[in-house]
């Protein structure tokens, strides 16, 4: 443990000693390194300016005091000096602008990519689609809710861990296409030097080329509502060989877990699956007890939609709410089976005992063939 950390933990009071970092996370892409170096240069320049300028000021403060008997000399302008201190800062800025321009152009150069991944921001999770390989999945926060509410039992990667990370190959130029489903999010991984807003209705691009295998963590950087602080990003960079192995396994897994859209499910099975879907997608607003948050997010427990009007229930889950924009249209995100499962769960959980079973084919019918 380094000296600075001991000092900080003393300043910060008793408790666990955590690593405290003063500067950027170690960069692992050319762009991140460029940013790192550029920032170091800027820091050097600005600290030097501060020391020189305020050195002069503090000299005056120490020497030109009334209490020392210093008499004021009432000069109040000097054209030469004023021109000098206008021109010199301008020249320093031009000197800064040169490397800064190069870095901006490098960041914006998204061409000649080796592969493309589409990233979609949702409230509050990320979806990754490997456009060249047909693999796609959603990445959720993996930290259990209990860890948020108790002071103990927080793992090393508290809040920066996901159920399924974005796996990428090292040494390849990965182009990202970013968009969002609901509000603006921002995909940020400090070590990669990438932060790009994901904007609903628009596609933006960014890129990175990781040169060192490893796990790099970041999180959403644009306030996107209640659980903005709980949508981390984990990038797992592997060698091209390891990546190929992972990709093959992931494709196989996707094929194996594909649902038969015509399967007829039993209530218990569907409810069990629906509970999982609920935990991943609905719990943030409607809460684990189905009571919602009064005034902001409606309760499902005992609500007319979740206990009586089945078509309305299917409609609001599929197409979202017309009255409350916070209720997303889940038809675009979830499969027929998942939607059927979650509706079945909601109609049979908490105090709702309707005994209703909604089958995947009902959802398919409700989509009206639009799917």
């Amino acid at each position, binding site marked *: 443990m380094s000296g600075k950390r001991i000092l900080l933990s003393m300043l910060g009071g008793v408790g666990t000693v955590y690593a405290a*970092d003063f500067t950027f996370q170690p960069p692992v892409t050319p762009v*991140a390194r460029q940013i790192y170096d550029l920032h170091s240069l800027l820091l050097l320049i600005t600290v030097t300016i501060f020391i020189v300028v305020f050195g002069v000021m503090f000299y005056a403060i120490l020497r030109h005091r009334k209490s020392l008997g210093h008499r004021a000399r009432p000069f109040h302008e000097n054209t030469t000096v004023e021109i000098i201190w206008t021109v010199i800062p301008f020249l320093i800025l031009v000197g800064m602008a040169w490397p800064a321009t190069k870095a901006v152009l490098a960041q914006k150069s998204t061409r000649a990519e080796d592969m493309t991944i589409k990233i979609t921001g949702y409230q509050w999770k990320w979806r990754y689609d490997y456009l060249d390989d047909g693999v796609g999945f959603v990445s959720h926060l993996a930290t259990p809710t209990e860890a948020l509410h108790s002071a103990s039992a927080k793992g090393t990667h508290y809040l920066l861990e996901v159920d399924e990370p974005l796996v990428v190959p090292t040494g390849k130029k990965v182009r990202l296409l970013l968009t969002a489903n609901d509000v603006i999010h921002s995909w940020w991984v400090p070590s990669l030097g990438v932060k790009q807003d994901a904007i609903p209705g628009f596609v933006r691009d960014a890129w990175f080329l990781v040169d060192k295998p490893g796990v790099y963590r970041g999180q959403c950087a644009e306030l996107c509502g209640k659980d903005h602080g709980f949508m981390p990003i984990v990038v797992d960079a592997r060698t091209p060989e390891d990546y190929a192995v992972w990709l093959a396994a992931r494709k196989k897994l996707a094929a194996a877990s594909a649902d038969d859209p015509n399967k007829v499910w039993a209530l218990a099975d569907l409810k069990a699956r629906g509970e999982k879907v609920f935990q991943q997608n609905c719990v943030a607003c409607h809460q684990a007890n189905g009571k919602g948050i009064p005034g902001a997010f409606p309760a499902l427990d005992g609500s007319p939609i979740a206990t009586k009007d089945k078509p309305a229930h299917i409609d609001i889950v599929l197409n979202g709410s017309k009255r409350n924009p916070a209720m997303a249209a889940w038809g675009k995100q979830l499969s027929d089976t998942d939607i059927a499962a979650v509706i079945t769960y909601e109609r049979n959980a908490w105090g709702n005992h309707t005994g209703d079973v909604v089958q995947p084919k009902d959802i398919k019918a409700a989509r009206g063939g639009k799917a």
Partner: protein
Amino acid sequence: MAISTTAGHAPHAHGKPTGLWRWLAATNHKDIGSMYLWFSFTMFLSGGVMALCIRAELFQPGLQFFQPELFNQLTTLHGLVMVFGAIMPAFTGLANWLLPLMIGAPDMAFARMNNWSFWLLPPAAALLLISFFVPGGAAAAGWTLYAPLATQMGMGMDLTIFAIHILGVSSIMGSINIIVTILNLRAPGMTMMKMPMFAWASLITAYLIIAVMPVLAGVVTMVLTDRHFGTHFFNAAGGGDPVMYQHIFWFFGHPEVYIMALPAFGIVSHIIPTFSRKPLFGYTSMVYATSSIAVLSFMVWAHHMFTTGMPATAQLFFMYATMLIAVPTGVKVFNWIGTMWQGSMSFETPMLFAVGFVCLFTIGGLSGVTLSVAAVDIQLQDTYYVVAHFHYVLVAGALFSLFAAIYYWFPKMTGKMYSEPLGKFHFWWSMIWFNVTFFPMHFLGLAGMPRRIPDYALQFTDFNRIASIGAFCFGLGQLIFLYNMLRSIRHGQAAPHKPWEGAETLEWQIPTPAPYHSFVEAPHVEAGDNGVIHSMTGGAHH
């Protein structure tokens, strides 16, 4: 001086009203100025309590006191209350109090409109504060109220939008008053290029407010119609553009930064010459620097949006334009140091706050230069580095200058002296704990902590603890200021006409405390740069 004593003829010859009516129907610029200042201090305390709630939650990892939705409401309202409730009204209040005295006017140009522009503020502030208690709570989209997140909120957002409309009307009317007063009511001899810097800063700020507050009102109205009337300005599914919100917002938002900074520059340009016992260095270049900052402030808005994915050419344009602002800002800092150089300085509380302002504002300026570099901003945008940066500019900048101003003009306003030891203690206490609170935030941002999160990864714990301790100490210290003011208003020693040896502007030529009706008859002045009065004749008051 004899003319105005013939009661009944001169329009301002009525007496001093008493009781509640004096305040409700106030048309006297000093009464209205005082109400503005007390109002803004009240808002400062309310916004401060919200800040302390935020820092309490962030003292350690995990969710302890507030659920995320309430946390987001607190960050949003903290920003709105501090910007629109505390800082802007405080500068308008000072302008009300001081401008007529500085330029030799009998009052503000539109005395009744002045009353209206103040009395709009309390209902607007009430709307903001009661929004915590409506269904769904207060607005929680950040003070920037970005769409489409802002379309998701409950009725707290509507109350916020309405409050912004009212606050905007208030500041526009205040600004019209400032502009007309300065342009039309200057005493003979007080030409534009002799005016004190605070008058210049207030004039330019007022133009900025009139230019951009309607833009803000427009954009929040678009959010309102998106929310309730089926428009799709910012809804991509209906052909709208969420990023357009940001362009319009920051076209307001960046000049807004200077609306909160230019009056501070003006104040400091009075205090440093006074306590250096020397004229302000480079008065003319100060005027031009202030004007060019104002003009440039309209051309840099998209530097708040470097991560939205603008084309490289736009990134570069806004980067260069932003860097350019460092030049006139640098000129101002050099001029202040040039004023101190070879002076005969003493360090009473106003001077301490002014020097503290120059140091800390410059730190904020230098981190601003770092942020202006688009490539580096990509890492720092929406992190605690930005939070550190704008608190150096707004707390150590605007707030410290306001403290400096209150201490400096307190004797003229009240006829009493404040307690110098308590004032100095307030300065050193604020200076230390301000830096303990906000300096570590630079490190948090660099290390990768986003802003506006209620809980954080474990590696950010140490600096957050330090910041929280600093914030509570800083907050408590402001009660010293309140105590000093209240005690000194009642029991302070009587202040001389000119408590500061080096104070040479017009307001120090009249009795202390400033008479209820000053300059009922315009004085004839012979003035030098920065409103330094060489001689004055006439200027009746009662």
